[in-house]
């Protein structure tokens, strides 16, 4: 053995450390168990359970006070396995309409979860069956009934706009500063998401004294320490649900989007993305199945094209181009440009259709002359010191219209669209090695100009208002949210003089009266509109129509795109004019009924969704499996 120090003392040190820890723990236990009596006041054989009490989620009404979203109770049978005494399984199965295998499976699952906490035994019970079940419940200890609210929708419409609620995911919980817990519901899209904080209300907590088997005995201290839930706020939306439903029917069987705005207030009257779906599909127990089938559908029905669909505006952009030119002075109301079948550049020609000479800006819009607006764009740019400066100004001016930037709508997932700037052209042609003529098709809404249907509708509202807009929004009223509603009323000015817009309105009226959009004529009021055709490299062109009506004191501004709909006049203009007519007159004139019918029945979709049904037929097969079939009582 080598000579080493005597290590025995180290052993005592270790034993001392171990003993010291145990002594500290014993002192702590003495304190907890003998001295501290914080918890002693709880009766010896009882415990307390803190139970979350969910508030009712707010209901949603349309602008006319029609209830569109509400909560309906969904009945469930719960079981606490530890309390289940010997029961007559045969009788149980008979009464509750389940087979023995189901009974065994569910009891097993419940036991595995907890012997003293409740598990769902049977869900999706109809109100009628539920009533009858309750009469038998006394025979079966350990079984209880429970009611959970399910979101219901009065109309099979406005799915995209309203959005849906679903169980929180871990990211929601993390971001909520401790508000959400597992299994809480949260708005995931649409209004349900934007106004989640108003709709959800405030959770309550009840302290319940329980006995040794976890059965509730009484509220703790008579409930004096309970926190009561506060129901969510009801919202009144700006939409007209009838109009929304009508527009969805017109767009059924087509891909596209429609946005209708009340110009003077920025209130969204209808916001449609097609194909659409019945919002009831994403509520209740079949949600997951339906969600999967919607998510996998090739037509992408969950995508809200109205806010995030990207389309070149095509000719519907011409009125905006005219406004920019007139304000700049690079275009005057009486400017005329001859059109030899298009705008001729060295190299190639921007084609135009055959039309009379556009001797002023109104006729330029009315005849939708491509050459006219290529010139307008070119002279707008060339009115600046350099093309780059001009292009930047073009981009900046459009930003004031909410084009190339967000309009500020109070719905999630709005996209910017795109307005190219000087940098984009520098990239293609080299720094400053390009001029206005390289980009003239911007003047007719092509090149890399991209808008969403919402932006297009908003620019119509801006023209209707004479140069300003209020950010489109869907919230009309929520109790006690005055500052929020005030914020939604902010006016945005484009900097373009009111006087300029009378030419544009006349031009757009002309387009409907003698130009490309004659089909949009309504007998009782003047529609001002502009058709457009967005070229689509993948197939047939998209059909655009943007309009507002009536010409004086406009009540509605609409933008609609029908994908692969061909000319603007084929689908887009008829549908928009029908929506305007329905909204302003409340009915469709006899003369236009065949048009209405033709639009509703037109189908451009290869993978149609199941037709929308007011009553939720999709639930039925599932219900047969899970719902109790009770013996009829005589």
């Amino acid at each position, binding site marked *: *053995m*080598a000579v*080493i*120090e005597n*290590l*025995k003392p*180290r*052993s005592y*040190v*270790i*034993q001392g*450390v*171990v*003993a010291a*820890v*145990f002594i*500290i*723990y*014993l002192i*702590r*236990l*003495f304190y*907890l*168990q*003998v001295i*501290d*009596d*914080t*918890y*002693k006041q*709880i009766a*010896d*054989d*009882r*415990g307390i*359970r803190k139970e979350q009490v969910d508030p009712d989620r707010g209901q949603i009404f349309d602008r006319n006070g029609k209830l569109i979203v509400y909560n309906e109770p969904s009945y469930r049978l719960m079981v606490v396995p*530890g309390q289940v005494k010997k029961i007559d399984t045969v009788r149980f199965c008979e009464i509750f309409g389940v087979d023995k295998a189901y009974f065994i499976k569910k009891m097993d699952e419940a036991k595995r979860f*907890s*012997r*003293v*906490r409740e598990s769902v035994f049977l869900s999706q019970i109809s109100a009628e069956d539920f009533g009858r079940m309750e009469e038998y419940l006394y025979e079966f200890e350990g079984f209880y009934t429970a009611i959970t609210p399910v979101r219901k929708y009065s109309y099979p419409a406005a799915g995209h706009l309203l959005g849906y609620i679903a169980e929180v995911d871990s990211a929601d919980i*993390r971001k909520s500063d*401790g508000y959400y*817990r597992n299994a809480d519901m949260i708005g995931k899209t649409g209004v349900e998401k934007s106004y989640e904080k108003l709709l959800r209300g405030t959770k309550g907590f009840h302290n319940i004294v*329980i*006995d*040794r*088997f*976890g059965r509730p005995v009484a509220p703790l201290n008579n409930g004096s320490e309970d926190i009561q839930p506060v129901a969510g706020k009801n919202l009144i939306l700006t939409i007209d649900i009838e109009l929304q439903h009508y527009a969805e029917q017109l767009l059924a069987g087509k891909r596209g989007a429609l946005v209708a705005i009340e110009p003077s207030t920025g209130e969204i009257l209808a916001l449609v993305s097609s194909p659409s779906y019945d919002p009831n599909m994403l509520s209740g127990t079949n949600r997951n199945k339906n969600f999967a089938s919607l998510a996998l559908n090739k037509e992408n029905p969950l995508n809200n094209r109205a806010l995030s669909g990207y389309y070149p505006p095509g000719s519907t952009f011409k009125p905006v181009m005219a406004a920019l030119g007139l304000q700049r002075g690079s275009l005057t109301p009486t400017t005329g440009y001859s059109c030899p079948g298009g705008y001729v550049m060295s190299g190639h020609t921007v084609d135009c259709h055959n039309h009379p000479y556009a001797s002023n800006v109104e006729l330029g819009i009315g005849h939708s002359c491509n050459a006219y607006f290529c010139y307008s764009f070119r002279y707008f740019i060339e009115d600046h010191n350099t093309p780059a400066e001009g292009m930047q100004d073009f981009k900046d001016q459009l930003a004031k219209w909410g084009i190339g930037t967000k309009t500020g709508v109070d719905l999630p997932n709005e996209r910017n669209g795109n307005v190219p700037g000087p940098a984009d052209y520098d990239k293609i042609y080299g720094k400053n090695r390009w001029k206005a003529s390289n980009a003239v098709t911007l003047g007719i809404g092509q090149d890399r100009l991209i808008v969403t249907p919402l932006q297009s509708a908003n620019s119509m509202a801006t023209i209707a208002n004479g140069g300003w807009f209020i950010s489109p929004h869907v919230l009309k009223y929520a109790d006690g949210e005055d500052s929020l509603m005030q914020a939604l009323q902010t006016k945005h000015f484009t900097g373009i003089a009111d006087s300029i817009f009378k030419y544009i309105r006349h031009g757009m009226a002309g387009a409907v009266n003698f130009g490309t959009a004659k089909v949009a004529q309504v007998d009782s009021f003047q529609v001002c509109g502009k058709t457009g055709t967005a070229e689509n490299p993948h197939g047939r062109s998209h059909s655009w129509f943007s309009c507002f009506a009536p010409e004086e004191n406009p009540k509605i501004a609409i933008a609609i795109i029908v994908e692969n709909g061909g000319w603007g006049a084929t689908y887009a203009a008829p549908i928009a004019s029908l929506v305007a007519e329905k909204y302003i007159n409340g009915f469709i004139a006899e003369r236009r009924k065949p048009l209405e019918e033709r639009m509703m029945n037109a189908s451009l979709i290869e993978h149609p969704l199941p037709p929308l049904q007011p009553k939720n037929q999709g639930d039925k097969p599932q219900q047969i499996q899970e719902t109790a079939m009770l013996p009829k009582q005589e």
Partner: protein
Amino acid sequence: MREKKSIMENVDQVGLGLYIALLLIGLLNVFAVSFSDEVRFFDFSLPHGKQFMWMGISLVVGFSILTFESSFFTKFAFILYGITIAILVVTFLVAVEINGARSWLQVGSFQFQPAEFGKTTTALMMAKFMSMISGQPRTFRNKIIAYLIFGVPMGIIVLQSDVGSALVYASLVLVVYREGFPVNEVLIVVAIGLCFVFALIFGMDPVAITLTIGLLVYTISSSFKLVRKEKIKGTVFLALFTVGGLLFLLGNEVFGLNIIVSVVATFVCMIAALISVRKIKYFTMGIPVVIYMVLMSFTIFGVEYITHDLLEDYQVQRIETLLGMSDDADAEYNVTQSKMTIGSGGVFGKGYLQGTLTQSEQVPEQSTDFIFCTIGEEWGFVGTCMFLMIYLLFILRIIFIAERQRSAFSRVYAYCVASFFFLQILINVGMTIGLIPVIGIPLPFISYGGSSVLAFSILVFIMLRLDADRLFILR
């Protein structure tokens, strides 16, 4: 036959008795948690039934271990340890994620934590190595190897996000202390460990800086001795070390270096400093240098990595709760419920199977990590007192067994066992009574969980087997 009998005669009766007492206490308490009116005692589908079955298996395995030649354990220590490391790595790669930790392996329907069984093999390896170097001078190389023997599995387990088990491995510093490693070095290792834990809790900066300054001062002051003897080498070392330390401390903020650049520069200086003292007997000067580099890597990459990637949100929240950093009711829930349950037991408890809070599942994880609550509620202060006394006796008995060994192998192994049990109790009981953060590890023999009971039983029986030979073999 005669030999076996003599082995049974030599098995430490007190140790075995305490072990069986703990097993029975465990069984009673797991039964108490799953108890309700209709539960039969022998129902193998329920926790206590499974626990009973596993105790049977553990005893069978345990007594068959007593029939092994004790040379088996010395021979296979290396191989078993190697296999353990391999399995731990594999576990990290393929593990089933349970409660956010990737530390469970599944074989068929049987789930187990390799870290539990790794304690035994690590202890054997430790015993093997320490017995090999016993009597030799404590060279730097030997000491580093000793630390690495438990440091490596510990590191892998940290990567598995199983902080609790990793801390238990750290308890082996007690063993190297007992085996005569210099106190100041052991303290430095412990200090680094503590700093690491605190850094996790408080964020790294103040701790890293304090520790860095401390190490700098320690090394520089002690290297003046070196300079007096070895003028050139000493000065080079001192200069390199100082420059390296300053680079680390100030590189980023004062000299404006990229953090990676300053770390690499520090590393280069430190390694150069190490090389400069390589051949002189002041080699121990290098220890702080190495520690310093490890610490640096950890503080810069490790802590950041662990707090953001390894510790789950709920763990961070639990730690914050204990430090009063969060008043979120949900995060406090476990500790409050646990203290309430124990507190409600009073002096004499509510009686066996009368624990109402236990019965109503008030405390999450009560059959596993929070089983101590059941003892507290049903047996009161008298019960917890008795229970802790039994455990204290058990640990002291193991130390007693260790100290009577003539073979270094057996002594070191027994100390490893004592250290493991000590830390398990320290952490598990500490968290249920709210003295330390909630870190999920079982209370050995008491918590529900078959693989845990089996692993701890194997740990104990190997010690009993080695001890039975104490009179015959000097190893």
